C-alpha cells in the first residue's frame, strides 16, 4: 500500500516535471501560435495584437504556465488556441482511439515478434532467420511515414479497397514498423540465454527444442525484454502519430501534429502528459512483470 502511494506520489512529481520541461521546451522554439497570421495581409496587425493579449501570449512564461496548471486542476487541461475550446473536450474521443490503436499494435507486435525472435535465436541462420532479418532491415530503412504511404499506394494499385480511416491497416503498419526492434532484441536476448548451461543440460535430458525454447529459455530471458516492453510502447505511441496521419485514423495524430507545428501549447502539453502517463503505467506493469518473471528479484535470500 505504502509502496503504491509512494509510487503514485513519484508519478505525480514526474508529471509536473514533464509538463514544466515541455513548457520550457516550447518556449525555446522560435515563433508562437499567431505567427501564421502575422504574414496574412487579410488579418490586420491590430487583430493579431488583440488576440495575443486575449490568449495571454503577452504574459511572461511563468504566468502562462501557472494559468495552465490551474486549468489542469479544473479538469480542462487548458484551452486550445486553434479550436477555442478546452483541450479535455477536444481530445475526449480521439484519445481513446489513439490508445486503442497503440495497444492493439503493441499486442500484435509482441504476439508476432516474440515467437519469431525466439525461433530465430534458436535456428540462427535458418531460412526464417534470414527472411525476417532481411525484412526487418528493409523495414528499418523505411520510416513509418513511408510505410504508411506505400500501403496507401499498394492498396490503390491492388484494388484492395479503402485503407484510410480503418483500424486494421493502421495497426498492421504500426506493428510492421515496431516489429524489427522487438524481434531483434528478443533474438539477441534469447540467443544469450541459449548459451546458459541449463539449456544443454535439458537437451541431454531429452526435452524437445521447442519445449526448451518456450518453457525454459524464454522465461529466463524475460528481464531485458520487460524493459523493452515499455520502450516499445513509447515507440509505438510516437509512431502512431505519423501513421494516424498517413492513414487518416481519427485519433490524436492529426490534432497533435498540427498543434506541434502551430505551437498550440495546451494541446501539445496534454499529449505529452498522456504519453508520460502511459509510460508510467507501462513501467509499473513492466516492474510487476519483472517481479513475477524473475524469482531472483522476487525472492531475495535474506
Amino acid at each position, binding site marked *: 500500500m505504502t509502496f503504491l502511494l509512494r509510487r503514485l506520489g513519484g508519478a505525480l512529481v514526474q508529471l509536473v516535471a514533464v509538463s514544466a520541461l515541455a513548457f520550457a521546451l516550447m518556449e525555446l522554439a522560435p515563433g508562437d501560435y499567431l505567427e501564421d497570421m502575422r*504574414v496574412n*495581409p487579410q488579418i*490586420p496587425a491590430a487583430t493579431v495584437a488583440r488576440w495575443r493579449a*486575449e490568449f495571454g501570449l503577452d504574459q511572461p512564461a511563468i504566468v502562462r504556465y501557472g494559468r495552465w496548471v490551474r486549468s489542469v486542476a479544473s479538469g480542462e487541461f487548458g484551452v486550445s488556441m486553434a*479550436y*477555442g475550446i478546452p483541450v479535455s473536450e477536444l481530445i475526449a474521443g480521439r484519445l481513446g482511439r489513439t490508445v486503442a490503436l497503440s495497444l492493439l499494435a503493441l499486442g500484435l507486435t509482441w504476439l508476432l515478434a516474440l515467437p519469431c525472435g525466439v525461433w530465430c535465436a534458436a535456428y540462427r541462420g535458418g531460412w526464417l532467420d534470414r527472411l525476417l532479418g532481411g525484412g526487418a532491415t528493409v523495414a528499418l530503412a523505411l520510416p513509418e511515414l513511408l510505410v504508411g504511404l506505400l500501403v496507401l499506394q499498394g492498396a490503390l494499385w491492388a484494388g484492395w479497397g479503402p485503407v*484510410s480511416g480503418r483500424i486494421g491497416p493502421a495497426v498492421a503498419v504500426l506493428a510492421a514498423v515496431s516489429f524489427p526492434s522487438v524481434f531483434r532484441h528478443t533474438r539477441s536476448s534469447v540467443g544469450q540465454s541459449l548459451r546458459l548451461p541449463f539449456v544443454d543440460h535439458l537437451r541431454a535430458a531429452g526435452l524437445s527444442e521447442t519445449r526448451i525454447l518456450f518453457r525454459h529459455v524464454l522465461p529466463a530471458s524475460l528481464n531485458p525484454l520487460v524493459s523493452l516492453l515499455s520502450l516499445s510502447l513509447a515507440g509505438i505511441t510516437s509512431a502512431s502519430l505519423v501513421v494516424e496521419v*498517413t492513414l*487518416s485514423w481519427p485519433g490524436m495524430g492529426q490534432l497533435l501534429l498540427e498543434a506541434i507545428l502551430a505551437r498550440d501549447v495546451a494541446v501539445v502539453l496534454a499529449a505529452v502528459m498522456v504519453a508520460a502517463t502511459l509510460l508510467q503505467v507501462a513501467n509499473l506493469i513492466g516492474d510487476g512483470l519483472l517481479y513475477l518473471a524473475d524469482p531472483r528479484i522476487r525472492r531475495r535470500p535474506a
Partner: protein
Amino acid sequence: MEMRLAKLWRELLLATLILVPAWSQSGGRAIVVQRSEPRGFQPVYSVDEPSRAVIGLLHAPLLRIHSETQETEAVLAASWKVSPDGRTITVNLRENLRFSDGAPLTVADVLFTFAVHQDAAVASPLREVLQVGGKPLVVTAAGPRRAQFQMAEPYAAGERLLAGVAILPRHRMEAAYQQGQFRSLWGLGAKPSELAGAGPFRLKLVEPGRRMVLERNLHYWKRDKAGKPLPYLDEMEFLFTAGEDAQVARLLAGEGDLAASFGGGSYRAIESHRERRGIRLLDAGPSLDYTFLLFNLNPGGKRPWFAQTAFRQAVSAAMDRESIARLVYRGRASPIRGPVTPARLKWYAGPAAPAAEPRRLLSAAGYRWNGEGRLLDPTGAPVSFTLLVNAANPAYTQTGAIVEEDLKKIGIAVQVVPMEFRSLVDRVVNRKDYDAALMALRPGDVDPAADVNAWVSAGRTRLWNLSGQALHPWEASVDEKMRALMATRDQARRRRLFHEVQRILEQEAPMVCLVSPNLLLASRAGLENVRPGTIGDLVLWNADEWYWRRQ
C-alpha cells in the same frame, strides 16, 4: 421495418425523379475529401480555410463577390445602392428570409452581426477590416428589411467590406454574447441542433477527426431559373484526411467524390489512374496565389546589394520560372513576374516587359566576376546570401534548389536553409534576421484593397520592409498610388493606378515573383456544375448548384 419502408419510399421517389426530367437534378450526396478538419463552427473567429469552407455553406452574407466574374453579387440582399458621395451603402433584404431553424432573418440580425464584429470585447478578426479611415462603419436600420452602412470617408471598395460577413442568427447567439461566452460558442463539440444559419446547408452530423455531414437547408432562399429550390444535393459530406497523398488516395479508392487544392504531383498521380476510376480532372489555370523570393530590405539589413534595384532585377532576370513550373509543379503552375496573377481578370496589368540580361544588368551596376566565375560586388567582395525556405513543403525546398542553381550560373552563391514555418516567419517578421526567403501569399480578393496591407508602408504585412517607412522613392510612389486608388470610386482610374503599381513592383522586384500554382481539382464523373473560381472558397462557392447527372 421502418428502415425498409424508408428505403422503399426513397426508391419510389427516385423512380418518379427519373420519370420527371425537370426534377432529375435533385438529391444525392457529394463527398468532399478535405486535408484538414474545421476548428469549429464559430463564424466570427474562424480564419482557417477548412473551417471557412464548412461555415461558408452554413451561413450566408448580404453580398458576396462572385467567384467567377469577380463582381459583387447580392446574396441575402435583394439589392444595394451606394450613395453618390460613396459614403453610404443601403442594402435591402430579400423577402421571407429564414434561418435554417425556421426563424425569420431580419434587419435585427444584420445589426446584431455588425455589432458583434465591432465589439472590442469580442475581438473579431474583422473588427479592423470593418473600419474606414480608422472609424467603424455605422450600421443602422432604415426599415424592416433595409440596413444602412455609413463610412467616415469615401472608400472605393465599400460594398466589398460587406461581402463575406456572414449574417448571424441573433436569437441563437445573443445569450452567449451577453454573457461574454461568445468565443466558446459553437465549438467543434457543438450539437447540430444548436446551430442555425442562412446558408444552403445545415449541420447534420459531426464525427471529430473523421467526417462531417451537412444536409440541405429547407429554408434556403435561393431557387434556380425553373423555380426549383436549391440546393440540389440532399447532403454534403466532408471526409477529413491528413496530407495530400491520403486525400488523393481516398478519392481514387472511391471514398470521396471531389478533392481540390492539391499539387501538380498529385494531379499527375490521378492522371495515371484516371481511365480506370472515372474521375474528371480539371486544371483551372493560375490562382491568385503567388510564390516569391523575398529580399530583406528592412533598415539595417546586412546585404548592401539588396538595396540596389539593378541587383534585384538581375536576380529576377536570372530566374528560370519555366523550370520551376515544369519541374516543381509538374507543369501545373504559371510563371509570373509580378504579384498580380492573370487570375485577377480586370486588375491584371498584362505580362511584364521582357527582362534584360542579368549579367549586363550586373556589370552596368559595377559588379565583376573573378576567375572562378564568382560574382564580386563593386567593392570586390564576393556575393553570397542565404535563402530561407519552408522545410515542410517539398515544393518550396525544390524551388529553393532551382533558385540556388540559377543564381550559381551568374556567380552568386546561395545557401538554401530549410526551416520550420513558424521559425521562418519569426525570423522574417519579428527578428528581421534573414537575407532572403521563399514565401507564398494568397490575396483574399481581386480588388486592390486586398493588397494594401501587403504593399504600402503603413500596411503591417509589407514583408520586405516592415519598418512602416518608405525608404526608397519607389516605395513612396506605391504608397501614394495605392492611397489614391483606395479613395476614388472611378473604376477606370483605380485600374490604371493599380497597373502602375504592378509595374513598379515588377520593375523594383522587392519580391521576385516566381510562379502561381494552378488551381487543380478532381471530381467523380457525373457530379455536375463544379466550377472552380478564384475568390472565397474556390470550389465550394457554388455547392448549392451542384447536382448528380443520372444515367
